[in-house]
């Protein structure tokens, strides 16, 4: 007997839902109550359970399909049951505008739910197992209610990820070595530091460790893993998804340099560090964003959310790769507070000890390549933010000032924004405001 699996109506206002992920495949045997797929309504991602026991005969709507509630999305029965009456409907569905591939953001939804609000939900048992096996829970996707990570999720992750000591894990990450490629010699096949170091140092390869490699172009293979993999994924997504435009402007940063020098001289002894340009630029951008809320926004589905809070990320080059610590509520902080917060964040990011909300949740990012002699460039937007400011080098140049030629400190600013969210003119006005604040930094006091 065939049992129809329908897309359930999970609320009175729900008309349709998106199948985020199928947890079973055709031919699988399922029990009544097993989770078959995850669906996303306009409110949440939820599990849909098998209405009966049997074999999954057919999945009628693949991952990513958006279908009306009560639509038959799969069939459960005995192998050999006749499912042809259902297939014409699928043909019709296939003929309809192709079901779009799910956007990456949707596919990631459960993990994001698990980490919602920066808090990671995992059962005590999952935490214990993760601790014992050295699994970072932040890398595990939760299948439980609300994305809670349960033991099975950790075990699944552990099955993919080799067992390794925390030290080996750290060394591997620093060296950019995938643990899957390291043979473990520790207790129970655990990867220990020596194993990683052995892998990194190709000088003395043991014969067994050298794979019978197919001819390949010369050059060391560095696996796309860890932070590198994350960067790759995010950058390509941004490049694919955004409609980006870069505006550039040259500003007179003389007063900014003076302000920075005075702050440095006045405060370095007390603070124990020197106030830097980035600290001032964060304060400037925060002020500008507060005044131009249309740039402080993000895309959510087919809606633009104008964000209430201003959190500024700063791209930082570390041994671990590019990281973006976020100064939260920067518009409400004094420059000194921004400076202190930023140093704490950067220190933790470099040590790999960042809290869960310290590297995420920004509403705008600054990337400064001035120290490398770069003048202007086209930064890539840090999704899901709307815009990013590229900062070039500050250098003395002749400039016209009050009808005279004078030597001034000049600076190029590059603003890349997502044209889907904001138009050129408002973006230009936003950049103009940043320029004004750079030229006349005392306005921050106003």
């Amino acid at each position, binding site marked *: 007997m065939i049992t129809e699996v329908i897309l359930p109506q999970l609320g009175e206002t729900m008309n349709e839902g998106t199948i985020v992920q199928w947890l079973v495949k055709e031919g699988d045997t399922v029990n009544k*109550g097993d989770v078959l797929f995850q669906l996303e309504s306009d409110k949440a991602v939820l*599990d849909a359970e098998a209405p009966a026991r049997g074999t999954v005969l057919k999945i009628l709507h693949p991952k990513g399909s958006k279908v009306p509630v009560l639509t038959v999305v799969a069939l459960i029965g005995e192998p050999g049951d006749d499912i042809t009456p259902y297939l014409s409907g699928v043909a019709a569905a296939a003929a309809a505008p192709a079901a779009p591939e799910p956007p990456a953001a949707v596919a990631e939804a459960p993990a994001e739910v698990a980490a919602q609000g920066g808090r990671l939900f995992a*059962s005590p*048992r*999952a935490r214990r197992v993760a601790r014992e096996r050295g699994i970072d829970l932040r890398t595990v996707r939760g299948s*439980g209610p*609300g994305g*809670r990570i*349960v033991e099975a999720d950790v075990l699944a992750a552990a099955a993919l990820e080799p067992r390794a000591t925390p030290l080996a894990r750290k060394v591997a990450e620093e060296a950019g070595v995938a643990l899957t490629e390291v043979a473990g010699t520790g207790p129970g096949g655990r990867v220990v530091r020596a194993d990683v170091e052995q892998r990194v140092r190709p000088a003395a390869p043991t014969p067994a460790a050298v794979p019978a490699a197919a001819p390949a172009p010369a050059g060391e293979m560095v696996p796309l893993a860890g932070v590198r993999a994350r960067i790759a994924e995010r950058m390509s997504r941004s490049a694919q998804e955004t409609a980006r435009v870069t505006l550039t402007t040259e500003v007179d940063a003389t007063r900014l340099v003076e302000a920075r020098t005075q702050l440095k001289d006045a405060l370095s002894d007390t603070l124990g560090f020197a106030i830097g340009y980035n600290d001032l630029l964060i304060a400037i951008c925060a002020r500008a964003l507060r005044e131009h809320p249309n740039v402080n926004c993000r895309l959510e589905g087919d809606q633009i959310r104008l964000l209430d809070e201003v959190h500024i990320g700063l791209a930082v080059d570390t041994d671990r790769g590019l990281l973006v610590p976020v100064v939260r509520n920067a518009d409400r902080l004094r420059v000194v507070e921004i400076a202190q917060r930023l140093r704490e964040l950067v220190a933790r990011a470099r040590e790999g000890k960042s809290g869960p909300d310290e590297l995420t949740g920004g509403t705008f990012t600054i990337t400064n390549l001035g120290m490398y002699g770069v003048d202007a460039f086209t930064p890539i937007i840090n999704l899901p933010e709307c815009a990013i400011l590229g900062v070039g080098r500050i250098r003395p140049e002749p400039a016209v000032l009050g009808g005279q030629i004078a030597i001034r400190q000049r600076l190029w600013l590059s603003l890349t924004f997502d044209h889907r969210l904001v138009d050129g003119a408002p973006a230009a006005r936003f950049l103009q405001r940043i320029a004004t604040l750079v030229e006349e930094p005392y306005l921050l006091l106003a």
Partner: protein
Amino acid sequence: MEDLAAIMERQGLTKEDLLTMLRQMAEIRAFEETVYDLLGRNVIKGASHLYAGEEAVAVGAIAAIREDDIITSTHRGHGHCHAHGDKHAPTPEAKQEHLNKMMAELCGRATGYCKGRGGSMHIADVANGNLGATGIVGGNIPVATGAGLAISMRKTDQVALCFFGDGASQTGNFHESLNMAALWKLPVVYVVENNLYGMSVPFDKASCVPNVADRAVAYGMPGEVVDGMDVLAVHEAVSRAVARARRGEGPSLIECKTYRWYGHSRSDPRVYRTREEEKAWRERDPIPRLARRMVETGVATQEEVDAVLAKAQEAIARATEFALSSPMPPASEVAQDVYAPDFWTPEMVEAERALRRRVREDKTMRQIPYWQAIVEALREEMKRDPAVFVMGEDVGLYGGAYGATRGLFDEFGAERVRDTPISEATIAGAAVGAAMTGLRPVAEIMYVDFTPLAMDQIANQGAKNRYMFGGKTRVPMVIRTEGGTGRCIAAHHSQSLEALWVHFPGIYVVMPSTPYDAKGLLKASIRDDNPVMFIEHKMLYGVTGPVPEEEYVIPLGIADIKREGKDVTVVTYSRMVYRALEAAEKLAGEGISVEVIDLRTLKPLDLETIVTSVKKTGRLVGVTEAYRTGSFLGEIFALVNEEAFDYLDAPMVRVAAEDVPVPMSETLEAAAVPSTQSVIEGIRKALRGR
């Protein structure tokens, strides 16, 4: 006034006897005056209800009994404790030692009678027949009645002397106990110390008959009013009553009119009585009264009398010095002596585990119903130990409301299978008294819903006495009762009240689900030296199951894994075991593997089995027929949280009865408690994690 020599002749008293009475009274007085002072200086903490003024009652009455007799005391009990302890101390050194232990107990010292556990209101010397004081007014009247019952069943000529106040004579315990004692002609002498006030309320504002003794006629026993300020009058009246009791003619009620010098307690300003009244009573002070009579009639010289009075002061001063220089009990001993030691050994536990396997696997084993398993356990234990007897409502000829004593009446007779009046408090209290004096009562309370009627006796006296008395007594009694829904008899006959009983320290709670468990656990409960609340289930009496022919006991505190599984643990007990097993069977068809743990005993609790299972499965469902709020599941979950938090993979799930009084109508009754389907849903919820 009658000639003293004539009185002594009639009562068979010597000069030495009189000097002893004078000494004891003077020592009580000095003791109480010292305690009053120590309370005022905050050296003695807590409550002390002083006996000064009433000395003639304790001394006269206790002089009238033998050393092998029994007494019970009250919250105003220092006089009873001293007169009794002094009587049992053969030498002057022993007498001083007794006073030392008494004062030390009041001061909460390790050297006290009860190692500082009981203090003024719970002082006892059970080894010598003082079953102790009680903080509950009227609390010991059933206990003394039970001691009388034990004497009666052992057929010795001892008596039980039961002290209580006029306030206690207004409690239900008084009525129930006097009725039961008179009915069974128990050798109990009830001595009412009527000091005219129940705390502050005058006796005539609490009773419309002028004398407590007048009520004796209602129970068919003699009642007598005596002058409680005259030690010889008390002695004479109590002697008469004791002689009557020893002859097997039953109990008496003696009311001693007396007066307390101090207030109800140290903090009482005594606004409810006049200073004139106090003065009038003080003029009748029993101590100078006896001293004067002895000197005036030439029985003793003034010097002899004065020496007695002076020595009394010295003895108390020494006792006080001893007490105050004694160590406080170490805090490390706080949990000692709540329970008597277990009698079972690891070998017995292992043997039972093996037997359990056989019971499960041997398909040829005889099958008997649950009720019969109970009957067999009672029969075997009654045969094994003559101290075991059964009492309760309708347990005799009728065979018990659920047939669990069927046939025993014919086999053992009305003495050991004893029908009682409908007096739950005294059924339980008499069990406490009988247990403390050497018997092993199995008292039936027909429904667990009725156990609150006996709660004071079971919880305040039975469960706590061992601890309060410094571990120096045992209360080996079983309260058999039954609970649960299933017969449409509504909220006074269908509850599951085990959570009330696990709450009190000092009592075990056993709830068997199968005939095998019922028999083995009941036998173990009867042999256990602790009080046990043994709760059967009304819908299980007819359930049949394998029970070995041979003798066996099941040690308390060992859970039984009724079904092994790996996905989720279900912890339950009593009838819900069957629903859990049905649910497990149904879910097995879906590939879900459920482990079902039958606790069998809630206290002692086999936490190890629960935790081991939770560590395996990561998921816990508790199933109980009790009201959800405050059910025993909450305790189990808290323990699992403490012991196995890191092993939980999902929130723990309770499947419990609705928080409504159990309704009568069949559909409502069924809806009020967990069904197999609700157990299944609970398990699914645990598997889903929400």
